[in-house]
């Protein structure tokens, strides 16, 4: 008989080991799935995890993609993790990401074709504010009317998507684009461009912002009373009230920070890798960041690693589709397995498994 026994204190070893174990289990289960699809499992796993970085032919293209893809994931996930720790569930980062991109792009395009070094910083501020404002909607509805922030933030994603489509077709459409949907290309306008900072690395301002966010969140959670209050509110809400934490203030703060960081991610994307506001500008970073946040155990350093890993499976997954003809659904299933195993083995940090014979006969 297998029994679960609660540990007196969470195991530090398993807190670190469970993500590694989850990755290994994902490789095994994924390998079985690939084999059932008639592909060589070892080749598939190698294509996903190894080739993007070291393949002699493709690595030059795919290696910089790692930071390009990981940057927004990490930036958004760090913001989300603060709220998740406090028990405030912002599921709508995708919408905040879109609104950041729209507001930032609009601020820049309003000044087109001016030439000033101040335009890009202005766009960054506008992008952050756009995401922040979109996060404030569920925050205010929750604190004023006690609505559920999960539903409100999620549904606002679809509102943001409709706004994005209408902007790409309407107010922000490139007047010189021959009637095609989509804005001017911001990455080709020097004042608004978010270029690759070091050639061949994929490093752009959004990646820099992600690293800064990781460090700031780490200090906040380890050293600052606000970080302590966030953890306390998530673990023991009544103890938090006893300690004098104002729950409404935390809701506003956490949704505000996560919205702002998602908005910034959107802005850096639209001015850099994406280049323009288009109907299908958003590519699911806001949702994937939820997985990244949990994969990184809501810990800033863990999120950094998880973001890189997740980006790797994206790039590797595309490569596997291209080279081995794996269906896109198989890659998504593979990524789903990762989250599944992560949550499943998570219980090892708080429980130990005991394998015992039938209980003693009285």
């Amino acid at each position: 008989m297998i029994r679960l026994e609660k540990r007196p204190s969470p195991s530090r070893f398993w807190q670190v080991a469970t993500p590694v174990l989850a990755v290994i289990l994902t490789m095994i289960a994924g390998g079985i799935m690939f084999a059932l699809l008639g592909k060589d499992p070892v080749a598939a796993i190698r294509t996903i995890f190894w080739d993007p970085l070291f393949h002699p032919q493709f690595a030059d293209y795919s290696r910089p993609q790692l930071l390009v893809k990981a940057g927004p994931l990490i930036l958004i996930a760090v913001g989300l993790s603060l709220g998740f720790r406090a028990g405030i569930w912002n599921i709508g980062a995708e919408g905040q990401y879109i609104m950041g991109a729209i507001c930032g792009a609009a601020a820049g395009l309003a000044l087109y074709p001016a030439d000033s070094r101040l335009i890009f910083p202005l766009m960054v501020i506008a992008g952050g504010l756009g995401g922040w404002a979109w996060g404030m909607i569920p925050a205010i509805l929750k604190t004023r009317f006690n609505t559920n922030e999960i539903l409100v933030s999620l549904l606002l994603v679809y509102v943001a998507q409709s706004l994005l489509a209408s902007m790409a077709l309407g107010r922000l459409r490139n007047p010189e684009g021959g009637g095609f949907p989509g804005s001017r290309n911001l990455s080709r306008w020097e004042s608004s461009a978010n270029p690759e900072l070091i050639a061949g690395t994929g490093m752009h301002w959004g990646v820099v912002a992600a690293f800064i966010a990781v460090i700031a969140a780490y200090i906040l959670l380890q050293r600052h009373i606000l970080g302590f209050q966030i953890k306390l509110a998530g673990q023991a809400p009544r103890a938090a009230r006893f300690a004098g934490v104002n729950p409404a203030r935390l809701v506003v703060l956490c949704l505000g920070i996560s919205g702002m960081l998602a908005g910034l991610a959107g802005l850096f994307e639209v001015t850099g890798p994406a280049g323009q506001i288009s109907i299908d500008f958003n590519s699911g970073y806001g949702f994937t960041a939820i997985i990244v946040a949990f994969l990184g155990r809501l810990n800033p350093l863990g999120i950094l690693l998880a973001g890189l890993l997740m980006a790797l499976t994206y790039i590797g997954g595309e490569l596997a589709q291209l080279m081995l003809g794996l269906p896109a659904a198989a890659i998504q299933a593979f990524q789903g397995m990762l989250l599944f195993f992560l949550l499943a083995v998570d219980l090892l940090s708080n429980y130990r498994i005991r394998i015992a014979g039938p209980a003693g006969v009285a």
Partner: protein
Amino acid sequence: MTELLRLEGLTKAYPGVVANSDVSFAIGTGEVHALLGENGAGKSTLVKMIYGLVKPDTGRMVLRGQPYAPDRPAEARRQGVAMVFQHFSLFEALDVAENVALGMENPPPMRELAARIRAVSEEYGLPLDPDRMVGDLSAGERQRVEIVRCLLQDPKLLIMDEPTSVLTPQEVEILFRTLRQLSAEGTAILYISHKLEEIRALCDEATILRRGKVVATCTPRERSAREMAELMVGAVLTPPAKSAKPKGEVALEVRDLSAASPIPFGTSLKQVNFTLRKGEVLGIAGVAGNGQDELLLALSGELKSDPGMVRIAGRDMGATGPQARRAAGLVSAPEERLGHAAAPDMSLVENALLSGALRKGLVRNGFIDWAATEDFAAGIVKDFDVRTPGTHVAARALSGGNLQKFVVGRELSQSPEVIVINQPTWGVDAAAAAAIRQAILDRAEAGAAVVVISQDLDELLEIADDFAALNEGRLTPTRPVEGLGIEEIGLMMGGAHDMEVAHGH
């Protein structure tokens, strides 16, 4: 008296702790048998084995001459063993009859069941209306629901776990009459308690447990309460010393404090008034659920009231939150340790920061001074004899008593002006309880004003200067403890909820 149940060498071990070790004793038909012991002595595990909730590792039980090894409570009930738990398992949104039906294997039709509930409750002097909603009942009435639920099964052995902790003295007297009637009819009762005077008044035999072992058996009527207490604790006890210093100026003033309860089915506070001077200890008694939790929340600032209702050292703090009140010198310790007074998964260091940040100056410009916080936590552990491997273990890893020492110690170590404590020694062993009471009195001696809310009357009479009782959210006028009789206290606590009538007074 024929033997009903015999336990032979029952042993039950959990990882890291032996809950029961070679426990043997017998209960006769119609006997009222006391099971005495401190918290953690193994009483609960033992009765859980008898009631089929836990399987013993070794040892056996014999019921009416037949081997008895229930594998679940339903089996125990079928064989005539019933149990009234300390914490009621009742649904507040259902009525009495529905609650009773939920505990039965094959409940009869509702109307028939209601008639049987009425008949049984009248026969045993426990008036109960089957149609009333449980959420509207007092704690004493809820207990009656549990008892009647057991009596409907016509048990041969009735196990009662700490039944009087929720009752007024008058209600206790009526419960005892019911139990004596049952005993006279041949129902054996296994009575678990640590209230010694009650056991002396009620029980025929007593088995005393300490650290899972039977350390003594005695006839309670022939022993003094002190003798039994010392058997229970295994040490000689010294009562705390009260200060005789004259009291100072007003430290805490509560005027017409009314506040709606934030707890579902809670009790709202209605027009609570009292004044407390420096160095004074006010004991507030009351049956559980009469507004104790709400009063603590309203004083700590977690439940905001209107301006003017609470004044600390003359300053109006009525509408302020917990941190502002801490700044004004008020500290508080809620009843529930895990989840309210302390965060279960956080370390003792983090839990020290939880309420100590402000008064101990542990946060500068928003940044936490972890070194100072560790010193603070280590100081609490040392001064209050908290048994723990270190200050970095999670709060939930500590035993209830040790965590209580930590929580109370954390508040008392902040040089407070006003102290509010709910159930300061709940679940703490006798020696630690004495130490906590002494620490409270020491702070009073040093000039702090203290409000102690407790359901332990002996504790209140021991440490308080003044006495008041909460009854359905109202506070009685305060009275000096000196010269206060148990009858008066009972009346202050709200009488016996109409129970006298049933016994034909």
